């Protein structure tokens, strides 16, 4: 393991980079952002995140932001600056595409959670969500994250699968990721999350 101090030297003067995580209240977006942030800190980056609590968590749209570099100023990601949009739901992916930098990558779960107006039959869920995402952001990886997570032992670790897919894009070592999982995930869920992360990581490495 390269020492954190050596990493810090390498990071010096590095511009701020951003990842946006989106989903629906209750899907664990905040935990995923914390895992990512913790792995980046482990690597030696300056990190800032932002999240929303309270009213927005009652099944509403949820968004978390993670920024890292040598010295991060704003905790909010400006439009067009995210190198990746990690999303646990297709509609929320579409909703947040404007955060992506040109050429930025979508990493999304093929999951559909109907918002109330759709449940009520008042409006249609965009049936072509997946195609629209891929046409707007050609660098998209859309997988059935819940199924992959279920295979790893816990369908709720879908977020961790997506982080695994994101992981080769970032200069953070596998051991630093696993350390973050161990320190933040509840003890009984660590093993499933480890497996879910590695399954995602392998998937990204294979498709690279």
């Amino acid at each position: 393991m390269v020492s954190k101090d050596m990493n810090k030297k390498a990071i010096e003067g590095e511009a701020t980079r951003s990842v946006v995580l989106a989903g629906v209240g209750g899907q664990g977006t905040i935990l995923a952002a914390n895992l990512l942030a913790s792995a980046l800190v482990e690597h030696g980056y300056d990190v800032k995140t932002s999240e929303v609590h309270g009213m927005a968590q009652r099944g509403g749209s949820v968004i978390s932001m993670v920024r890292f570099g040598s010295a991060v100023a704003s905790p909010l990601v400006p439009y067009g600056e995210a190198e990746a949009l990690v999303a646990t739901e297709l509609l929320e992916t579409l909703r947040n595409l404007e955060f992506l930098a040109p050429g930025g990558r979508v990493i999304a779960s093929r999951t559909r959670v109907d918002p109330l107006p759709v449940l009520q039959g008042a409006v249609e869920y965009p049936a072509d969500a997946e195609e629209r995402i891929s046409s707007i952001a050609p660098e998209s990886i859309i997988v059935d994250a819940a199924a992959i997570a279920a295979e790893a032992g816990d369908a709720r670790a879908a977020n961790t699968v997506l982080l695994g897919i994101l992981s080769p894009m970032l200069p953070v070592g596998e051991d630093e990721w696993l350390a973050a999982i161990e320190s933040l995930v509840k003890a009984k869920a660590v093993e499933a999350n480890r497996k879910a992360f590695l399954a995602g990581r392998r998937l990204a490495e294979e498709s690279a």
Partner: protein
Amino acid sequence: MPEKKLMTGNEAVALAAFHSGALFASAYPGTPSTEILESFSRFDGVYAEWAPNEKVALEAAVGASIGGVRSLAAMKHVGLNVAADPWFTLPYIGVSGGLVVVNADDPGMHSSQNEQDNRYYAKAAKVPMLEPADSQEAYELTREAYRMSERHDTPVMLRLTTRVCHSRGLVETSEPETHARVPYEKDEVKRVMIPGHARLRHPVMVERLAELEELSNDFPWQREERGAGDAVVVTSGVAYQYVKEAFPGVSILKLAMTNPLPRRLITEFCEQYKDVYVVEELEPYLEETVASLGLYPKGKEWVPRVGELNVDNVRQSFPELAASTGVEAPVHLAHVEGLPPRPPILCAGCPHRGIMYALARQKAIIAGDIGCYTLSVLPPLSAHDCQVCMGASITMGHGLEKALEMEEGESEADSKGSHRVVSVLGDSTFFHSGVTGLMEMAYNRGRYTVVILDNRTTAMTGFQDHPGTGVTLQREETSSVNIEMLARAIGIENVRVVDPYDLDECRKVLDEEMKRDAPSVVISRRACVLRVKDKDRTAYAVSREECNDCGLCMRLACPALVKRDGEVMILEDACTGCGVCAQVCKREAIKV
């Protein structure tokens, strides 16, 4: 060098209070301030409590300060409205143990009913105010606030905003200190604010303000960043971070102590530049002072006064300044138009749903309150008619009933003899500020109905305990308020308890109580579905044979009930088995 740790602004404030030797903290939960007390309560040897409301919390902290202990009170912006009474007299009394009042504003109203700018509270009360811009500063300025409080014999406001409270950043801590309790000494001239004493204390405050302004001029956290060009931006709080990115390399005067404002510093620094800009969230608080100094700043005419700031809208406010830095705004993908919105909703199995549905069907005029149940205002439930602040349901309902009576003669009752006004509020909100309203109803001969939605927790802010749960913040067993007995003691003779999962009972009891020509209280009691440990309830399903897709059940707005290709169905994974929809169905098509 100590290891830096990632923490939210709220966690940093709690840790800094602990490292400053604070031993007493009190608060009422409110987004975005809630986690300050939750974090603080976990430290060794401290006392931390949920107070019934913010006024109580602040007064308890004042008492602890008089008792010689460093203390903390925390609240969201509208909480300080509730605590405004002690807030304005507390600076007359001063402190014994240091007292820091943490106030968290919510620009953009992520989880609030307004976006008032509480910096004016500090100015109006002559209380020094510190404004951190991230977690590191939240830590440092909390530490400094305790020193300032005792040195200058004043409470100190720490003003946070949502993006400071709920953003994480790396924090480097400094050496913790233990604070020796200041021995109690009687000093009634300083602490008993009869007019004769208060007249002695007010000049002391005015003198103190002058001293504090000198301090503000030399305050080490007021940062002068000299950059390129002939423009300077005056800013504070999280807005500073947006300015840094929107206009890289520009000169900045970043203020951390924003009451009293350092007028000498502002003048001396800004006079060196041709153009002066002010970038701040919400009101033109800094701008007013900068303008009063004859510096002709550009501010709120260009910078949004409504909602949150961010790098994008700060950059767009002053394109000439952005252009002068030579850095171009990133290109970004177009916003995808026409997507279905995703508003927050009552959870599947939420005990508020049944009773709010029953109320809406009674054609009640519903004076509502602050809590998850306010979400029932959205269609199709549409079960709220007015709402303004914590506890106002009962009192607004009172005035509303009296006014309707004036308009309609003897009684405001409808053709079936049913009083139309019903006030609705949650258990935690009732303890917060509903009790006095209930006395108003009883004493002043109200004849309407109050529905208390008792879900045994403070749900909206994340399940905090309250005076009705029998447990304290630090997990000690304690007494719990008996709402039925309290209502009777106040003078309400008609007090009924219903199970909101039993729709027939809800309808019957509401009908009877709304027809009654006397004040009544209906307690709708069932624990928040997110707090129910026993999850082995059986999901319901729609029988295709009986269902004619009339959509009556869809009016419940339950996320487990969906209409796909014209057919109503229940999402098995989402259904909690509450059974309310089965009771709504006229064809008995919804079964276990």
